[in-house]
């Protein structure tokens, strides 16, 4: 199986709004429909959040997908290092957002896709960048279609 060239971290909000098929966040739904043309990392913090946002049965289905299509979705069970979390907190991220950024950096991910406005405004000029689902869709349309 061919691994897609781009590897992004999708923030929990993208998963949640995408799975809800929320009209107010239609770009999240569209982006999820394009997984496979890029691959996704799910770090421990996002897994824990999804575990609270979804039911046990829904998480089982989710893990089934992860296990069947590892070329599209990769799960990382590694905790983020405290040093990296502090680094991103020091750059204005809230602790939870800092954990996500730390996971991304430790996994060699350069791009986080998130609708979290504060995250988008805070994480600028750093090693990891944040873009919205809409921006991610625009990027994909330029590179793929």
């Amino acid at each position: 199986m061919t691994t897609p060239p781009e590897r992004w971290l999708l923030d929990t909000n993208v998963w949640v709004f995408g799975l809800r098929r929320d009209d107010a966040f239609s770009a999240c739904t569209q982006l999820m429909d394009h997984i496979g043309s890029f691959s996704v990392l799910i770090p421990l913090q996002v897994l824990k959040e999804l575990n609270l946002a979804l039911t046990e049965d829904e998480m089982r289905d989710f893990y089934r997908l992860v296990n069947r299509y590892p070329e599209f979705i990769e799960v990382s069970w590694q905790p983020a290092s405290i040093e990296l979390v502090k680094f991103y907190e020091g750059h204005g991220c809230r602790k939870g957002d800092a954990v996500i950024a730390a996971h991304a950096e430790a996994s060699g991910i350069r791009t986080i896709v998130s609708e979290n406005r504060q995250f988008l405004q805070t994480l600028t000029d750093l090693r990891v960048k944040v873009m919205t689902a809409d921006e991610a869709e625009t990027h994909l349309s330029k590179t793929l279609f």
Partner: protein
Amino acid sequence: MQSIDDLANVITDLDPSEQQVLLDRVAQLNFQKGLHDLAEKVRARLAHEGALGAQPEQVWAELHRIREQIAEHDYPT
């Protein structure tokens, strides 16, 4: 509808590179179907709970709450 054998014959007539593209596409479509099924399950559950029409602000508040709760637990101040 073509039989499986007919389809297999069509596929084996393709170049190896075309076969790989086809296999990748089939995997992607299967993955998408699984994701769609999961979304339908989530939406059905939310509808049952009366939460499908929740305002985005409510969803955001819950997402922020669980994010900070988990982070504070894993990385206590």
